[in-house]
């Protein structure tokens, strides 16, 4: 999404400036100490700085939940909207302003539960944006309720004897949607991998869906504990067309060579949830992008007046 198609530019482009991390710092984060969102925020800021995105031409749209507070902590334009509805708003922004850099930030409740319909359709629209799903596998802000991605058996306030059903698999689900063009997974506790994944998502032209496994120190720490303690429970997906992060190679011995252009392989790998797999599952830039397909050149007021006069002629008596 970095090199915006020039024909789509309606309003301008980023002017060369020397932005520093500080230029992207908004309000002081109010997440709990130890929350994975802090690290995600840092990676996002690093991405903005590395890519030198003009803060005034960058829009972060979020839903409701702990993760959706993220735009407040950035100094870009932000839209902290409704629970589950980040994607329609982000779609509206990008559809009408292809020149802006658009990010959607959601939680697992936002994306996979109350806004699940939008997730499916935004994937299919394939509008050029980065969609981050910060998945702590629990409802945090409303204080410990089961989410669609909560592991089976994990107790919460709404399902105190443990979650009844196997969790929804966001990667498999996204990979099942036609026109999906970028699906990746990373985690808040492997910052180098997180950053590399965000960068790949940002540079992808199309709807880049990233599931970020994210620790909640209050309600779901245990869910991720085993991954933190036992590196053998994690597998890195490696490919020259995907992402490869040498600095974490020593940390995670399990490495799988996976070609992100292979959709069948991506689906098979995503389906197996015995390990946490980090990397790009699928990427295909040849899919149609909705905002490009629907692009119509803007018309001057004079042109529109002339056309409208002709249209009225058709109804004239």
């Amino acid at each position: 999404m970095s090199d915006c198609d020039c024909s789509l530019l309606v309003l301008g482009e980023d002017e060369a400036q020397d932005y520093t991390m500080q230029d992207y710092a908004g309000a002081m984060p109010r997440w709990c100490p130890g929350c994975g969102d802090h690290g995600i925020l840092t990676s996002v800021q690093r991405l903005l700085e590395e890519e030198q995105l003009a803060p005034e031409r960058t829009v972060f749209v979020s839903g409701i939940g702990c993760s959706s507070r993220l735009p407040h902590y950035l100094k870009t334009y932000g839209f902290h909207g409704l629970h589950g509805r980040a994607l329609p708003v982000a779609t509206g922004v990008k559809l009408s302003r292809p020149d802006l850099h658009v990010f959607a930030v959601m939680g697992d409740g936002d994306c996979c539960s109350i806004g699940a319909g939008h997730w499916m359709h935004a994937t299919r629209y394939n509008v050029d944006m980065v969609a981050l799903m910060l998945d702590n596998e629990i409802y945090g802000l409303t204080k410990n309720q089961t989410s669609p991605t909560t592991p089976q058996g994990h107790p919460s306030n709404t399902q105190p004897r443990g979650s009844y059903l196997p969790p929804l698999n966001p990667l498999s689900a996204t990979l099942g949607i036609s026109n999906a063009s970028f699906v990746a997974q990373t985690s808040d506790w492997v910052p180098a991998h997180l950053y590399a994944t965000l960068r790949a998502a940002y540079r992808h032209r199309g709807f880049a869906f990233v599931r970020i496994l994210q620790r909640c120190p209050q309600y779901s720490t245990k869910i991720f504990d085993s991954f933190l303690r036992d590196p053998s429970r994690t597998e890195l997906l490696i490919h020259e067309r995907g992402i490869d992060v040498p600095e974490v190679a020593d940390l995670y011995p399990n490495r799988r060579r996976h070609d992100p252009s292979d959709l069948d392989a991506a689906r098979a790998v995503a389906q197996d949830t015995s390990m946490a797999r980090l990397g790009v599952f699928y990427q295909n830039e040849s899919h149609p992008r909705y905002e490009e397909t629907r692009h119509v050149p803007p018309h001057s007021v004079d042109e529109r007046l002339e056309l409208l006069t002709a249209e009225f002629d058709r109804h004239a008596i």
Partner: protein
Amino acid sequence: MDAHTGASTMAAPPEPTSHPRLLRLAEHTLEILSDPGEGAQKCGQIFGEASARMGNGVWTVEIIPAEIQPPARSPAGGSGNRIRVGQGPVTNWGDHANLVVAFNEQVLLGRHDLDALADDAIVLIENRWASEDDEVIRKQWESAMAQLTTRNYRIIEVPMETECLEVVDAPRKGKNMFVLGMLCWIYRRDLETVREIVARQFRKKSAEVVEMNHALLDVGYRWAEAHLDFQFDIPCTPPSVPMVVTNGNQAVALGAIAAGMELCAMYPITPATSVSHYLGDIFERFGGIVHQAEDEIAAAGVAIGASYAGKVAFTVTSGPGLALKTEFIGLAVMGEVPLVVVDVQRGGPSTGLPTKVEQSDLLAALFAQAGDAPRVVIAPATIEECFNAMITARRIAETFRCVVIVLTDANLATGVQPWIRPELDRRWLADPVDQAAVPNGVRPYEWDPNTGLSRRFIPGQPGGMHTLTGLAHDERSTVAYTPDVHQRGCEMRSRKLAVLQNALKPPPVHGDSDGDLLIVGWGSTKGAIEEAVDRVRAEGQRVSSTHLTFLSPMHPGLRELFARFGKVMTVEINYSDAPTAPYITQENRRLGQLAWLLRASTLVDVDCWTKVPGEPLRPARIHAAIRDALSHERNP
């Protein structure tokens, strides 16, 4: 019983006559009814347009079943048009049809059962069913005729399909043009005008198709000339100013373009969808797009996102869709994102009456929301006003950074009427995007303490970065939960309505400015109410009416206006308890929606007469209600 004998007024086609009886009329109402797909609607539309072009006043209403292809020959499945044609302007669909053309007796029966026909109506009916091979159909015909002949209709059998065989092999598809030809002779329509409209209707087809339809038109015309003994003359005055003919949904779409809108986000819902059909056809030529979202909620979200990003966007829906968009409307109010929502009302609650008119979303438009969410609600009363409302709505939405809900209804949506061609104004189309840097120190909700108005920021503007939020926030858009901050935000958002009201005028009064009874209406009922008021005034009664365009904020001056009348009563197409119904008392009686609002805002004891018949109100019924109200007032 044999339908052809007894008290029947039915007649075989009259003998040819060279001297038909020519009746000069001030107005006439006709209906054309068929099974869906047989083209009665096209026939009606062309007749209506031709009449408008010749200089008659016209109001056309579609008669639509809820299904696409309901079973053929069913009373509830009739499809067609009612066209009221007059010497002067026609503002509503009238009371009863004076002439009906029916393609079968069952669709006719459906209208008869709804008391849609005048007692002395002329009925021209396809008679092939009387001699069908299928005994069931013959029996249906006989039974229907037995019912129909209890009235004084003059029933004339017409061998429509037989006559059409002269031109086509499969006349089911062609007889609408035959009927059009017949009507052209009866109403002395200018054949050249009609032929031209027909040619335009079929312009995408081959020349042979146009020729065939012209031939059918001629057959119908000649048949009428040879067999009918009456003709009507409704004097025409060719319009002195340029006029256009559209329905209300087309007017909304044209208004959206004229208002500079560039995005229509919608989800299919009757009777709103045809706005997007029309826009889908032409919008891209203007640089605009129709986005069919995955659901009603997303349609609102996309429109809000586009508006936030500096485009002029609107969403169009009907009642159930408005309910789904409610939360997003609240966000737009809270974040002060300009948004125009068009609600083409239909019968409710729930799925209700999808194709039928109702005015039941008024209170939802004003109040359905979590928390206090002041918004502007305007209701066009005519098709011309549907066009103007879009321009007004954009202007208010942007000036006041607010949500504007435009309430039209199924009657306006499908009603066709000539209206004065608007003079387009380039200022309506001005681009809202200003990408200039935000001056140092200006905050995203820098409310003027008196008016609540503030400068709008748009992404792309340097120095304007902030996060818009649905949470309570201060002038910097910083989330804040302190009591003062929330009180202040609510106050500022509410103040804007008062400021807007300050710019409004009291509504005009139809009739004298004082009297015994004032009728108050809103939306599409204006023409019918004013016609009813004219009738009672002609009887010497001191009755006037007023019609409200602004429902939120309300027009100023209502209290003073109401004080000049002995009684005030709303007339609306929504539900209210009948005062005499069991258990109903003055305390628990649920009122018409405007009546609730007026009582609350004026403290006047406003009464109401409301109905939910699934059709536009008829002037005669309003007339009767006014008489009742007057006599009740005099003899309580």
